[in-house]
């Protein structure tokens, strides 16, 4: 029988090191975590599998981590003391900046992990700035030094320049082979400060993640700042005042293990039986309900949806399934918001709010994969604040809510964007940003041939295909990150698309007035190709209010008949007509015009493709 050294709940803070890893997708964070699990012995060799900590299939397939976790690793330091290292995983993408910031808040130090063949990427840089703002200890590390394409000297110089150290201070590892990982763990012990807190004060623990589990309900990950949390005690969520009983408390190493509690500086999980992650929100402070703390930890905020899109089932009868699926996803995704929406063109669906584009994509993909739902989504849009002439102020997240009355001012959300690009592509990048109404702030050379450019950009201009465009204009080398940065006044108009005089709601769009014409020409042209000819002539128009800005004409159909219908043709012809009849049932009526659902789907899906052809 092994005697556990430093059991959780009683670990002296001076033996604890809490750290995380900041890295870009594919730079090897999960592989590094795998090696640490192995080297510290918490996972036996025979139980090891790749990307051990990434739970969801999508995470493993896309190589990104959506939900962070914390894992407790025992490690004997160079001074022969038994340390506890808590590796706190951070989400790796732009949309989850807030979650990243809370994960960072739970640590005293961070490993900055960069691919030695690729150098630092914009998001990593953005997260690094977050860590620096938090006064965290940064340990710069180059990974994948075993790759033939690795350029460790070049990127060590770049990292040293960014972090402000000597190139020789940059540790070189290969998470794949394990080279340098022991040294890295030793360095964590030496470099990362021990947590400080008051063990006698009322308990305060910060929630840095909250995950819904089918069997256990919500699993909440916390970092204890002051005091101690113990099993069966009543805890209180300081943002809402809600109290819960602690049914279970423990650590992950790397499987969950109940403990007698969690003390100052410790990291672990707790379970209260709540069923919805919104009752256990990231950033919130947990305290003892009998002896509560008076002051919550700073930094809690509600996740705010930034990007909106309508999601509609392609098969209208799937609508109840979509509702159930969204309800289930929300149990595990506090940032997802939705409300019912109905569209003439697309039927019944939900208007959903997301943290950003990736969040939207992940939700769509999970709806497809886990719930088997075929969906069409409208073009993503953002929220606007509109001042009306009568002094009223409204907020809208859907072009259909755009007021028809006189407007004094419209405010659109803007973001601070960071773009990293090889210097060869500065021209195309600036051109793209300018085309998207970007305002450049500054440009810094990170190294001889890489620059960092900072912009303020309207969010609406990047929700669409900005990232794809950026990638295609820089042969995939540029990287991009943004964070919300308030709002600005903009000259925006709503462009409606009319079929035979009737507006098609799914295609209405709020665009900058200088782009209204191009949008109108684009959409009318595309619909002309997609909508079958009717028995009468159909004008397809783009309009701002009552003013027509573009027009195409769908001429009346003159022929819809098969010339030959002899003995051998009859079965085939009948089947063809049966199919057409089925198709007719799926037609949506826009006024008198019959439009196949597929035409709407195609028009919305090709949005990004054809927009990229234009430029």
């Amino acid at each position: 029988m092994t005697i556990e050294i430093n059991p959780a709940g009683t670990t002296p803070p001076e033996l604890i090191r809490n750290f995380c890893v900041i890295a870009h997708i594919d730079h090897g964070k999960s592989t590094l975590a795998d090696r640490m699990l192995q080297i510290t012995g918490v996972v036996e060799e025979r139980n090891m599998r790749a990307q051990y900590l990434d739970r969801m299939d999508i995470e493993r397939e896309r190589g990104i981590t959506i939900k962070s976790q914390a894992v407790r690793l025992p490690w004997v330091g160079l001074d022969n003391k038994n340390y506890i290292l808590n590796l706190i995983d951070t989400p790796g993408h732009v949309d989850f900046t807030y979650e990243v910031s809370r994960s960072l808040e739970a640590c005293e130090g961070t490993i900055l992990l960069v691919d030695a063949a690729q150098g630092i990427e914009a998001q990593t840089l953005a997260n690094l700035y977050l860590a620096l703002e938090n006064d965290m200890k940064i340990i710069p590390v180059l990974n994948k030094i075993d790759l033939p394409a690795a350029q460790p000297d070049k990127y060590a110089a770049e990292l040293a320049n960014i972090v402000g150290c000597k190139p020789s201070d940059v540790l070189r590892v290969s998470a794949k082979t394990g080279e340098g990982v022991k040294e890295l763990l030793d360095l964590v012990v030496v470099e990362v400060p021990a947590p400080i807190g008051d063990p006698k004060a009322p308990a305060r623990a910060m929630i840095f993640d909250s995950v819904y589990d089918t069997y256990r309900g919500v699993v909440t990950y916390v970092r204890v700042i002051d005091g101690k949390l113990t099993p069966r005690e009543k805890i209180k969520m300081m943002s809402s005042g809600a109290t819960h009983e602690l049914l279970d408390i423990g650590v992950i190493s790397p499987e969950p293990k109940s403990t007698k509690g969690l003390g100052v500086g410790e990291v672990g999980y707790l379970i209260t039986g709540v069923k919805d992650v919104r009752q256990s929100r990231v950033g919130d402070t947990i305290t003892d309900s009998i002896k509560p703390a008076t002051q919550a930890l700073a930094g809690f905020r509600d996740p705010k949806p930034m990007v909106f899109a309508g999601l509609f089932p392609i098969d209208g009868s799937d609508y109840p399934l979509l509702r159930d699926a969204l309800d289930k996803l929300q149990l595990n995704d506090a940032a997802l918001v939705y409300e019912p929406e109905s569209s003439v063109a697309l039927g019944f669906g939900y208007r959903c709010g997301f943290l950003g584009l990736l969040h939207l994509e992940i939700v769509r993909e999970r709806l497809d994969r886990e719930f088997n739902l075929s969906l069409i989504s409208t073009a993503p849009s953002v929220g606007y604040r509109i001042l009306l002439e009568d002094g009223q102020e409204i907020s809208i997240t859907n072009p259909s809510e755009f007021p028809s009355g006189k407007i004094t001012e419209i405010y659109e959300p803007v973001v601070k964007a960071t773009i990293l690009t090889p210097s060869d592509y500065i021209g195309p990048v600036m051109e793209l940003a300018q085309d998207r109404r970007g305002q450049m702030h500054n440009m810094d050379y990170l190294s001889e041939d890489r620059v960092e450019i900072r912009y303020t950009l309207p969010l609406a201009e990047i929700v669409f295909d900005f990232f794809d465009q950026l990638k295609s204009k820089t042969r995939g080398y540029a990287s991009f990150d943004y964070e919300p940065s308030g709002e600005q006044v903009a000259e925006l108009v709503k462009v409606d698309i009319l079929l035979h005089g009737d507006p098609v709601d799914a295609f209405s769009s709020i665009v900058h007035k200088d782009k209204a014409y191009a949008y109108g020409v684009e959409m009318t042209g595309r619909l002309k190709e997609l909508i079958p000819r009717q028995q009468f002539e159909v004008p397809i128009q783009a309009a701002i209010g009552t003013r027509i800005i573009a027009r195409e004409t769908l001429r009346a159909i003159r022929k819809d008949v098969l010339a030959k219908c002899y003995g051998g043709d009859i079965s085939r012809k009948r089947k063809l007509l049966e199919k057409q009849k089925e198709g007719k049932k799926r037609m949506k009526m826009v006024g008198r015009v019959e439009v196949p659902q597929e035409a709407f789907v195609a028009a919305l899906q090709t949005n990004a493709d054809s927009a990229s052809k234009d430029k």
Partner: protein
Amino acid sequence: MAALPEGDPAPIDGELPNKSDLKSKPFSLYVHVPYCAKRCGYCDFNTYVPSELDKDDQIQSWLTSAIKELGLIKKVTKQDLVIDTIFFGGGTPSLLEPEVINEFLENVSRRYSLKPKIEITLEANPDTITQEKSDYWLASGVNRISIGMQSSTKNVLQTLDRTHNPENVFNSVKILKDSGFINYSLDLIYGTPGESLEDWDKTLNDALALEPPHISAYSLVIEPGTKMGAQLNRGEISNVSDDDAADKYSLAEQIFSSRKYEWYEISNWSRSEMQCQHNLNYWRGNNWWGIGPGAHSHINGVRWWNEKLPKNWREKLTRNQSPALAREILSERQIKDEKLMLLSRLRTGIKSKEVKSSARNSLIEQGLIFEESENIVLTLKGRFLADVVFRHLSE
């Protein structure tokens, strides 16, 4: 080649669920002769050129199997049928030696009764018509020839990959008339890529100069899997435009009606009483047996189709099995839909009372049909949009 429809398995012995009353309706024979000297660029019929067939399945072996299938009809129907019409289609039936046609027809009349003045049609390629053959056909009982003229414009024939010269059509008609044929038809195709309205006008006038009692005119359909389909995919030719086809149909209708030809089906016009009785049987939902590889049959709501490959067709018959590949037993709904689909294409139209009055009124309002005594009939606009009409009627 056009794919066969999917169907249910066909019974090995060709057994039919319903053989009653076969004498109360006309019963026709379709005879498929799937051989061609060369395949035309637009053709998606079940046809074979000699190089595609084994030596056992060349045109010379056709008769033996065809006669076996002829015998199967009696085995399956167990009735003394009166044959209403016979139609040799292809392929190129005129490639058969006239003695073969004669022997086949002799076999038919030996086993079955023939209706008095039975219509017997043979499709002929203008290149293959000789005086000798023509005389023989008439003597054997063939009394109607359908000539694949397609166009009188050289470049159009070239695009279609037709081997014949426009003059051959003129010569063929002369030969047929000299033999004593009264009934013959010209098949025309319009809408070929590169064909101008003037080209089509010339074709129409050249055809009418031959005084045919009957004309069929089809809008070209470029099917996937054909040579022209491949050319279309490669962008070498452009697809048939519906507007162009509509213009050309209008021109044909205008010229035909001015010359006293009346439409009796969407793509068929004739002088009085010279309609193709065989095709009318198809459209009226009558019964027929299709003999030959890939041939379709219909008896009392069962449609079946034969093995497409001559080899498979022959082998099944050699084993005394039905050569059917698959079949479908039509539901009441499908029977009704077919009736609407087929009868609506005819000048005689559909009985008004068989159609929902709401659909009828809406179609009349749209100018697609008109009422004539007890029937509804397609207007000219309705002939262009017959599939729209059908979808309305069958709702």
